[in-house]
């Protein structure tokens, strides 16, 4: 029982977050006077979690510790079940201890640093939430539980980038980071589903040990799904740009999130799935490639950065890229140690970021090689971060937005009237939009059937009027021309890539 209690390391920080949130809602924790309550709750919880992990480590060292430790079942449906289980092995425990320790330090830092900030309590709440999430992420015994931590970490990072939500830039950047991370979630979820389908379970052991049952391509696909998740979380190329936008939060949050926490979560995920990856050489190669690309991206961009936070950030990106590269080449141990060392040092550097100027004033960095120094195009590329964000906008964001706008218009103009929904959009009592008098509408219908009936009546009426009564058929030619123009227009639309993509997708969906 004691062991089970100890294993629930994410619980204290999550409870602290809930207490702070509840206290603020109830009006118990408020303003400057309540600062010590929030900070003590958060610090105490982080300290408790740290003690728990250290105790587990000691137990593990002295005796044996079952890993994973099952506490119960969360969901069960047919043959599928998701357990509440914690993996307490040599990978997760040291990392959890490190995160808890660094979070404790950052919390301590924030007590003074965030004093009298309007969002003091919010900050401590989110930081506690984040610590809980990271502990859950690292100690979860299966992918589903890990995913919960994964999402909570993403959420808290969103909340802290938007800490100054009154500044539009901060809010927009937070949203951007959030949306980019959802791409990774898609990979994670797909990985979960495939793991269920192919291996029958989502415990790490199931996924890792299923190698015998899986074919190489299946292992590759599964690994790639999780690699996608890691790519988004650790901001690898091509999903790197969100990280540079995440620097809007307060200094301590930059330290804990981008020096220490979130950015390393992706590395942890691939380390956790080491056996799976070793069965999928293609995925390994892909990982190494992404890692190398990211390392170079971080390195070159980092050389050109002129503000402290961005400079540290791109240095981080470069190192995280190296970790993936190393893992991709099979140096798993090295990646793990590098992850730990890097988290410590980068956290330190981020916390000291405001003072860096005094340390380096008069000691400029070593300039780049003169050959590189002369490359204008390359310099511009590094300065503009290889235009990754523009490319993303151009290839994905803008077409998606346009498609959404088109679908919206389609909805409003065709679907809604067709189903007889009230169309309040542009029904204005302005004089210009009033129906011209003298032609009262006799027939009022709504709904599909009514509309169909009316359309039929109108068509017959028109037919009678134009063709039968006038009889000369002159209008027919004009009608044909107009119809032709419409069809041309549709064809043009289909030629645009976004519609082409939709068209192909629709076809594929129909086929499968």
């Amino acid at each position, binding site marked *: 029982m004691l062991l089970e209690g100890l294993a629930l390391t994410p619980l204290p920080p999550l409870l602290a977050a809930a207490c702070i949130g509840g206290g603020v809602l109830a009006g118990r924790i408020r303003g400057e006077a309540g600062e010590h309550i929030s900070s003590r709750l958060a610090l105490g919880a982080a300290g408790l979690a740290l003690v728990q992990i250290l105790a587990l480590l000691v137990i593990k060292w002295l005796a044996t510790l079952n890993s994973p430790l099952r506490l119960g079942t969360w969901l069960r449906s047919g043959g599928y079940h998701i357990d509440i289980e914690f993996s307490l092995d040599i990978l997760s425990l040291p990392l959890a201890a490190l995160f808890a320790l660094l979070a404790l330090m950052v919390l301590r830092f924030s007590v003074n640093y965030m*004093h009298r900030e309007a969002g003091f309590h919010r900050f401590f709440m989110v930081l506690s939430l984040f610590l809980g999430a990271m502990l859950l992420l690292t100690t979860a015994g299966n992918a589903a539980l890990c995913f919960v931590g994964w999402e909570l970490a993403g959420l808290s990072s969103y909340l802290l980038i938007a800490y100054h939500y009154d500044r539009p830039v901060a809010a927009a950047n937070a949203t951007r980071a959030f949306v980019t991370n959802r791409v990774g979630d898609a990979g994670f979820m797909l990985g979960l589903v495939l793991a269920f389908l192919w291996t029958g379970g989502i415990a790490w052991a199931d996924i890792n040990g299923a190698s015998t049952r899986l074919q190489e391509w299946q292992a590759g696909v599964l690994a790639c799904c999780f690699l996608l998740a890691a790519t988004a979380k650790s901001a690898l190329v091509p999903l790197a740009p969100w990280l540079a936008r995440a*620097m809007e939060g307060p200094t301590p949050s930059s330290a804990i999130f981008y020096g220490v926490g979130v950015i390393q979560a992706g590395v942890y995920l691939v380390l956790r799935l080491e056996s799976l990856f070793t069965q999928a050489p293609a995925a390994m190669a892909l990982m190494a490639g992404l890692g190398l690309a990211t390392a170079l991206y971080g390195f070159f961009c980092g050389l050109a950065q002129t*503000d402290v936070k961005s400079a540290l950030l791109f240095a981080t990106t470069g190192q995280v890229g190296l970790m993936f590269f190393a893992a991709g080449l099979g140096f798993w141990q090295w990646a793990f140690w590098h992850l730990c060392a890097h988290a410590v040092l980068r956290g330190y550097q981020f*916390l000291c970021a*405001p003072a860096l100027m005094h340390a380096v004033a008069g000691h400029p960095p070593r300039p780049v090689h003169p050959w*590189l120094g002369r490359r204008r195009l390359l310099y*511009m590329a590094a300065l503009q971060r290889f*235009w990754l964000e523009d490319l993303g906008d151009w290839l994905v964001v803008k077409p998606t937005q346009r498609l959404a706008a088109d679908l919206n218009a389609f909805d409003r103009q065709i679907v809604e009237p067709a189903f007889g929904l009230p169309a309040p959009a*542009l029904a204005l009592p*302005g004089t210009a939009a009033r129906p011209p008098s003298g032609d009262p509408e006799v027939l009022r219908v709504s709904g599909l059937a009514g509309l169909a009936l009316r359309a039929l009546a109108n068509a017959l009426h028109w037919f009678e009027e134009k063709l039968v009564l006038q009889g000369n058929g002159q209008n027919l030619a004009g009608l044909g021309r107009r119809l032709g123009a419409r069809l041309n227009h549709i064809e043009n639309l289909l030629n645009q890539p976004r519609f082409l993509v939709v068209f192909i997708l629709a076809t594929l969906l129909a086929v499968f």
Partner: protein
Amino acid sequence: MDALPGQGPSKASHEDIRRYLQAAVEHLDHVLPGQAPILNFVHHNTLHGYQHLPFAQALEAAEKLTGIHGYLPEEESRRLYALGRIDGQDLDVALACKFGGHDGEPIRLGTRTVGRREVSRVALLFGVDSIEPNRFNWQVEEMDALRRFQPDLPQDRRAALLRGADSEAEAVQALWNACLEVFGLAHYRLHPEELVDIPMREAGTILAQFDTEADNPLVCPVNPGVHQSVQAESQVELAALLAALGKRLTLRGMLAALTGVDVLEQIRPLLIRFCASQLDEGLAAWRAPDRADGLYAAWKRCAAGDIALGHGDQAGWRAALADLPEQSVDAVIAILRHLEIPQNRWKDYLERLALELPGWSGLINWRARHPEYAANRQVPVSLMDYLAIRLFLDRLWIERLCRETWGLPGKLSALKAYFERNPSELLARTALFAGELPEYLAGTARKLIGLSSSERSQPEHWRALAEMIWAWKRSPAAEKSAAHTVYRSAWRLFRLGQHLGLDAADLRGLALEEAERLLRLLDELNPCEKGQIWLQAYEHHYREQLFAALAQNHGRGRWARREARPQAQVIFCMDDREESLRRHLEELNPAIETLGAAGFFGVAMNWRGLDDAGVTPLCPVVVTPAHEIREQPRHGQESLHERHDRRRRWKARLERVLHQEVRRNLATSSLLIGLLAPGALPILAAKLFFPRHWDALKRKAAKALVPLVPTRLAFSAAADSQPATPARPRLGFTDAEQADRVESFLRNIGLTSGFAPLVVVAGHGSTSQNNPHRAAYDCGACSGRHGGPNARAFAAMANRPAVRALVAERGIAIPADTWFLGTEHNTCDETITWFDLDDLPAAFCPALETLRAELRQAVALSAQERCRRFASAPRQPSPRQALRHVLGRAADFSQARPELGHATNAAALIGRRSATRGAFFDRRLFLISYDPTQDPEGKILEGILLAAGPVGAGINLEYYFSTVNNERYGCGSKVPHNVAGLFGVMEGAGSDLRTGLPRQMIEIHEAMRLQLVCEAREEVLADIYRRQQILRELIGNGWLLLSALHPDTGALSYFEPGRGFVPWTGGQAKLPMAQRSADWYAGHSAALPPALLRCPDHALEADSHAA
């Protein structure tokens, strides 16, 4: 403007335009922030460009240009009123000052009359504003406003109003009815739904009213009356928009008003990244290849490779870039022409453009104006270059936006022509993006814009929308109509009536015109005037306290004349932060005399410390030093010095690896990270959990690692050396020059006789751990550096027998048994560093030991006094605890408020310490020693005023503006700050540079102008005022508030521009008396009024009174 002068009749006209633009850019210096790169932060007047105007006018002009209100928000002033920091009498004085004797024609109300002063007072105190319909509903339904008195009604008014009535409800109800009656209004309350949505019926009614105006409805079936009105309104709107171009808006602002898209959001990262790379002073390893050619040239060559400029439209931007002229000024001309900005607005347009990112423009302007600045030698910048780049980017993005939205070219004429043809769209768009529309209209407008971004495609819908908006503007929910309404007239009269103590009977007899006059009186003061009145009241409150203290302290302070020899003299910087230390030192030992002077002690020098690679000017920013002083190892310490140097270089290399290499490289860094991390973890823990111990340990380790070398100063030059000039500084001062410095400084502070055995000269500086604004805490008289070297140099000069002999020839006899000592006081952790103790003759050692012991006690007491203002300090600490706290605080790198800087400054006193000695001034005074008895003509005072006036005003005004509007004049909270290129701070990774002081520095500041009290006769001051232009500007325009303290009688008078000195009559109330400072401040954490101290001087009190 269509004729292109450049290609036109003559080349000269093009030259004229260039000159005109250059002059315009030159002029921007007046409106841009003048803050230096942050490592050289020095306080200066935030509105330095407006200093030629009177204070109130300057603030109004600045608000007109930038929209930044320069006074405390009214709620804040009211809060201060509630706290008693401003009282009713202060407000009366300020109002009397505003209105003079003219109270206007009084309005008769029943049995009494009301004047403008009384009405304005109510407006100031309670803000009688009109109310929005929904809030009115809330007031009536939830606050019971029509049955109960207003909650902010003072108790006595409440009682008076109740006297004639049966019950509160009845009195209030009757008053409300009377208010409605006066304006002939019926009471009605809009249903909540009517507030958000004018019902179709209502809109129909409004539109129908205009139907009747149609001449011939048959010709024009839709409503011509409304339509024409819409068109007319749209024309007005368009004209206003075009007129605002340059004055209030750039094309970017205009497009934002029309499309809701702010192109600056997209341009900013591109612009900032390049500018930062050009301005960087040591963060980036890789910089623009052509940076030495200047900002514009470097950018132009690099920009060809920036595909972000393309965005699909490759051909257009490449051609545009290729067409750019070589010179930035020509590029500005070409682009302004391309955009078709009218030529007579170019000046305003550029100003507006520069002010859209004032921080960056300001820094670039500063760099351009300081060509001698070290970074400028490698990378020159100019404001015109920056504007050219900004304009080019604007041009590309504006073109794109216009094409995407309307298919128009991004030119002014095209937009103008388009909106002349499409008036409904203009009206709908401007109303939507101004954010004034209610939700149902805004939603409709957004949908319409989504469906058809131009009126060309669905004209009838746009027209209908415009008419709806037009109708809404005339509905009661919009509160736009001109007539009297319940919310605007009746409600205000209702509130005003209560606060004036009027009952229903008083109001019922009121004629409509009288009521309108009453309401007009409420609006008589604009926000700036209100702010000015509040400010004057605030200042008046403090001045009364200050003057009362000075008046009642007259004759109490010691050392007005040095009849006996003081035990020691300590000369501090004039800094307000030293006031507490001086007071505590005097309390501890009354036989000590303290003096104050600008903290460079008259020695303007280029300083080169033992470990420095170059020189640093240590003197006020306006001075360029002509001499250099070097710190050198003492004789016989050469080998130690060598070891010191070797170890130091080694340490520097290590630090470089730690701070730069570890983030610069890729592969080697990863190894380094692995090596360093195990050490970093415990260090981080120690820094966070035991900052004080860690700091002490670190110091010890540093000392052991890099041994300290005993040093001396090299400050003397041979008498026949070539003359020293700022252009060609010379190493050292000649004997005569040294004697000049010593003599004039001693004369300045009035220390010409009665020298104590020990004269300590104490410079100051501040240390803090994680603080980009560190220089702002240092000595302002030393260009934001530590003033210790100046103190040390002065002491060393004054100790030289040769110099003393020269000084004695000029009439100041420094006795042989007097020794000068230089020290530095750390205002953050309260440590004191002593210099050149090795040279001290043994005879002085006992005296020094005593003094050091007293100083140790005094700094602890001063720390205790400071702790009362820190929220995180222990409550009521002992001096020892307090000292520990400030030590820990200074060492703590998580501390955003290591010290509070000049946050308490409010006044300056130029005069003998005897005027202030014996009274508690709460660290609010700059104290500058000056002896009027030795300066009958005011020559010395003139010099002091010229030096201290601008410095004091600079500090005070920077604090003032950063406090009244911290978001715009200050730099906001430190928490999201990110240091850019070692020259400034941004918020996040791509914002404007933030100038001014951070919020953490001004939280406890009381925003008021500096009271400058001179112990001098009025005539002397008036003569100086007449002679000196800079003082006329500062004092005559009200940036500084001057007053005179008569040296003999102690009578006070304050200077009023245009009136001269006005004798002060006040302060009848006896000031509280405390035994010691600590008794007075114990247990208080807010600002404290002055008090008299019954310190050990009391024995002398009787003597001086008798004298």
